[in-house]
């Protein structure tokens, strides 16, 4: 079994930042991720990453991977199915193999929320979509709806504005919660975008293909809204199953609870990125990479202070 100072679970912005810093600390480092690049990879063009002019999110993640590998860290694709304690060590199962580590950094990110409506699953990719950067351009010249009031939905509308003929932005709240620069851009789209505040999607109707939505509030006298495509951008839920299985505590909102040095309640276990709520709703690449760097630093200090934790455990056992 290959042994590491730190195994980072997740290869998004937080995980790759942790891998870069851990590599520079000369720790033997492995980063494993189910979906390379995490949320950043599918975010489209990133306009606000300091030091880098407008860059595609996937390209930015490839640069981060190259940086991490350049200092000796290993970065691989794979789904971690189990993390368990074995004395002072952690055993990580992935890709049909096992790895051991003195410390763990959970950088698991989030999974996108769905509306939870009947028909939603059946009509996925048949009019209902969750990746506007991927599938939005297929609706060139068509009418679409985007549901969600956060920055991701506003950015999605701005992207779709290049292709779609008409966009309905369906927002449950009374206002949008997005970066002002993105709101300014949406205003430039003019009549192409119609924002429906205090409105929810109550039904998705279609047989083999999306036909129309049923809204909670009428628009022009009808709650039926005929659209060709629906893009769901209603936020995300943290991936916490693996940390929970290891006894890691969660906060009141269900995210991994950590201190400002990214330490969890479990010795040798650290966390970073969107699976932690350290900065509240403000979840950005800059916050993710900062948390990754701090988590790697804490992991390094832990390994430096404790040496090889497995050997310590063996000594105690003797």
């Amino acid at each position, binding site marked *: 079994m290959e042994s590491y100072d730190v195994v980072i679970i997740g290869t998004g912005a937080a995980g790759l930042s942790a891998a870069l810093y851990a590599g520079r600390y000369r720790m033997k480092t492995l980063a494993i991720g189910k979906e*390379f*690049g995490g949320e950043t*990879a*599918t975010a*489209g063009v990133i306009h606000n990453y300091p030091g880098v002019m407008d860059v595609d*999110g*996937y390209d930015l993640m490839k640069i981060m991977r190259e940086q991490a590998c350049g200092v000796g860290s290993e970065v691989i*694709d794979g789904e971690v199915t189990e993390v368990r304690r074995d004395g002072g060590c952690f055993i990580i199962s992935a890709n049909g193999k096992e790895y051991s580590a003195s410390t763990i950094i959970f950088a698991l990110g989030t999974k996108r929320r769905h509306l939870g409506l009947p028909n939603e699953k059946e009509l*996925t*990719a*048949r*009019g209902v*979509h969750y*990746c506007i*950067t*991927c*599938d*939005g*351009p*297929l609706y*060139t010249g068509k009418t679409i709806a985007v549901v969600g009031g956060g920055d991701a939905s506003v950015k999605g509308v701005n*992207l779709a504005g290049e*292709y779609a003929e008409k966009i309905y932005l369906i927002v449950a709240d009374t206002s949008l919660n997005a970066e002002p620069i993105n709101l300014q851009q949406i205003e430039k789209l003019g009549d192409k975008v119609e924002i429906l505040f205090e409105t929810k999607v109550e039904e998705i109707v279609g047989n083999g293909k999306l036909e129309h939505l049923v809204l909670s509030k009428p628009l022009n006298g009808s709650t039926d809204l005929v659209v060709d*495509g629906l893009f769901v951008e209603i936020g995300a839920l943290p991936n916490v199953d693996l940390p929970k299985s290891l006894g890691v505590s969660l906060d009141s909102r269900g995210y991994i609870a950590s201190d400002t040095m990214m330490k969890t309640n479990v010795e040798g276990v650290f966390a970073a990125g969107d699976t932690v709520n350290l900065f509240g709703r403000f979840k950005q690449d800059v916050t993710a990479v900062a948390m990754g760097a701090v988590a790697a630093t804490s992991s390094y200090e832990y390994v430096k202070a404790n040496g090889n934790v497995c050997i310590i455990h063996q000594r105690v056992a003797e």
Partner: protein
Amino acid sequence: MRVDERKSVKNNTVIIYTTPTCTYCKMAKDFFKAQGVSYSERDVVSDLEARRVMIDKSGQMGVPVIEVNGEIVVGFNKEKLSTLLGLA
């Protein structure tokens, strides 16, 4: 890679249906390049006939759609592609 595996990779016919901004399409193309797999790309935004073919063959409108020797794979499923390409 053994010689017989190299031959099987070379003999595959791979078509990928993409949009210009699709990350999973880029991931799939990077995977093919890393494995030395040749592929043809169809941009379903600019090529309406390719879009029609993709929807007909896959029965849906998500990208990427990847055709390996006539078999359709929806999304970037590395394991399935590896099997179909004889890489597994």
